[in-house]
């Protein structure tokens, strides 16, 4: 059985957890309310979290609302995911200096600190496992990702607040934190108490908790606490009405590459790239070689890219393979839900619902798949 305990004062427990992580050299990152959204930023303590706030999400909709309590983790995922830290949107791979008779490489510009992520939902951990297959487990591991990933510490949260856009239940990726975490928190908030059930998922998680236990009030977890956790995630699971069947989506899309629905969605899709930038598993990147004005210094910069850009499929000296929105949306969805299986053995979707909420046109991939499945051309 998982070692578990209950921190009897939730906010103080989080304060001490963050402090313990910071003492170990981690940059502690978690959700923070900024500009009307829960974004991921460095946390100083529990007060940095969106205390007493929740979110409302629907297709093309994201709003935050006040709750009538002091809940710490009562919201679904915001637009950002740990991907932003493990594989940053922009990083310098190397720089080079022109020297007599050629050029010479210099080291990487900066090495980020180890990150500890607090408040990570199960879908996020599933997404990180997906990105591991791409950036860490392939024939050419990305050294900076491997390092960041190895160092990262994850404090998961069993999700009690799925948004209307969520569908992790059907994807098999949530709402309970079951893998990939060092610690898993369940927020137990009742009329009389505000406690955190903490389950230990790794040795280093145990070490951190030992330190936390020495400074805050706690009690051993009971069967009742564990039952309360199961109740919370079970209720979350049934609240998710959106569904996607991963293997059905895989088979239906690849068998319907010329379905008229692709033309239909192309009339709505703006090719704005939002879905790919909020997606926690999208990994496309581009490198840019830039040089100083005098031409003596050159740099290779890697930045996030999107299959919705024209340049993504450009052939050197010729045109783009995917010159229209129909082919770009089809590439995105068939890759995410179908050919990803061929490449990595899993679906590229974890059911976090971000692409639905942040699509300015309100395109809902679960509905697109359902439409194609309904009117199969085969």
């Amino acid at each position: 059985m998982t070692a578990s305990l209950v921190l009897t004062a939730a906010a103080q427990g989080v304060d001490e957890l963050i402090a313990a992580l910071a003492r170990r050299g981690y940059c502690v990152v978690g959700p923070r309310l900024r500009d009307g959204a829960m974004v991921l930023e460095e946390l100083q303590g529990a007060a940095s979290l969106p205390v007493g706030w929740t979110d409302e999400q629907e297709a093309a909709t994201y709003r935050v609302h006040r709750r009538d309590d002091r809940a710490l983790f009562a919201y679904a995922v915001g637009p950002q995911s740990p991907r932003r830290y493990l594989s940053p949107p922009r990083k310098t791979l190397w720089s080079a200096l022109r020297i007599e008779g050629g050029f010479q490489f210099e080291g990487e510009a900066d090495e980020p600190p180890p990150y500890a992520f607090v408040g990570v939902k199960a879908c996020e951990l599933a997404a990180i496992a997906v990105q591991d297959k791409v950036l860490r487990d392939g024939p050419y591991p990305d050294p900076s990702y491997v390092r960041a990933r190895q160092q990262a510490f994850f404090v998961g949260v069993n999700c009690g607040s799925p948004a209307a856009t969520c569908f992790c239940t059907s994807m098999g990726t949530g709402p309970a934190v079951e893998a990939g975490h060092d610690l898993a928190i369940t927020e137990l908030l009742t009329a009389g108490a505000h406690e955190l059930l903490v389950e230990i998922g790794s040795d280093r998680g145990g070490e951190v908790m030992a330190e936390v236990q020495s400074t805050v009030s706690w009690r051993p977890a009971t069967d009742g606490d564990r039952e309360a956790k199961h109740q919370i995630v079970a209720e979350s699971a049934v609240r998710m009405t959106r569904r996607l069947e991963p293997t059905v989506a895989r088979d239906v899309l690849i068998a319907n590459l010329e379905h008229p629905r692709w033309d239909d969605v192309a009339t709505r899709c703006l090719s704005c790239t939002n879905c790919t930038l909020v997606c926690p598993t999208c990994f496309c990147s581009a490198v840019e070689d830039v040089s100083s004005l005098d031409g003596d210094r050159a740099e290779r910069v890697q930045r996030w890219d999107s299959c919705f850009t024209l340049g993504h499929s450009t052939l050197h000296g010729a045109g783009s393979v995917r010159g229209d929105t129909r082919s770009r949306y089809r590439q995105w969805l068939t890759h995410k839900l179908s050919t990803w299986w061929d490449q990595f053995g899993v679906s590229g979707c974890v059911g976090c619902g971000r692409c639905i909420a942040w699509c300015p046109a309100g395109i809902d991939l679960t509905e697109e798949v359902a439409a194609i499945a309904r009117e199969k051309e085969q």
Partner: protein
Amino acid sequence: MVPEMPAEAPTIANVTGSRAPAGPMVPARYRVTDHRQDNADTVTISLMPIDDPIDDPQPGQFTMLYAFGVGEVPISVSGCPRHEGVLMHTIRAVGATSRALCRLEPGSVVGVRGPFGVGWDVSSAEGSDVLIVGGGIGLAPLRPVVREVLAARERFGRVALLIGARTPEDLLYAEEVERWRAVPDVHVEVTVDAASRGWNGHVGLVTALLDQLPITPSLTTSFLCGPEVMIRVVARDILEAGSPADHIRVSLERNMHCAVRQCGHCQLGPLFVCADGPVVTWAVAADLLAVRRW
């Protein structure tokens, strides 16, 4: 291989050991030792390593060539060090980076990453007839195939090389093609789209010559490289003539950008062309190339 350090580059020699960055995105430095203008817009450069050399490429593999401060492009290997003593690339000047690479004179330094991808697997064709069809710059990655087959001619059946070009002036490796033509038991045909009187080869599409080649399609391994349209029409004709789809190898082109299966740019259906290709069999390619804009 011990790199020969040209005398004019003492500075690089001094810092060779201090290369800080590592990983698959960091090029090895190579010096241009030869520059040959193949035709109006195409150049072949020969390279010798300054840093640790890349692994010896297989015919059909490609590298990423970096022009300092300009950019990086995928270029197929047109000459392997084990055949030539140098690493050779034939580059057509069609974009900013390829133009910069084509301008490099002997003594210049480029970055090389690689070798990447799946090659032609020439040795698997031993014992069968060999058909090599190269169109335009597509002859470049096939040049090492010809070299490899000629180096062990007795291991292969009948060998036919069919070359398509825009005009006689655009033909790559013209002198070398004449030497290949002179080899007994190697059938070489060159066809162009346009020519004037005095041209001794053919005018027309490469497919028009297929049924005149001294090979038995059902016992032939084919190697095709050129524009995708050419690959499709040639592959279908060979298939129609009785060659099994998995004995037809084609070299695909997509936007190979990182070359290490991570940037997503070169996808073609389930393939990362940089890693699962560029060479695949027609059994794999036929359905993928049939989908428009995929």
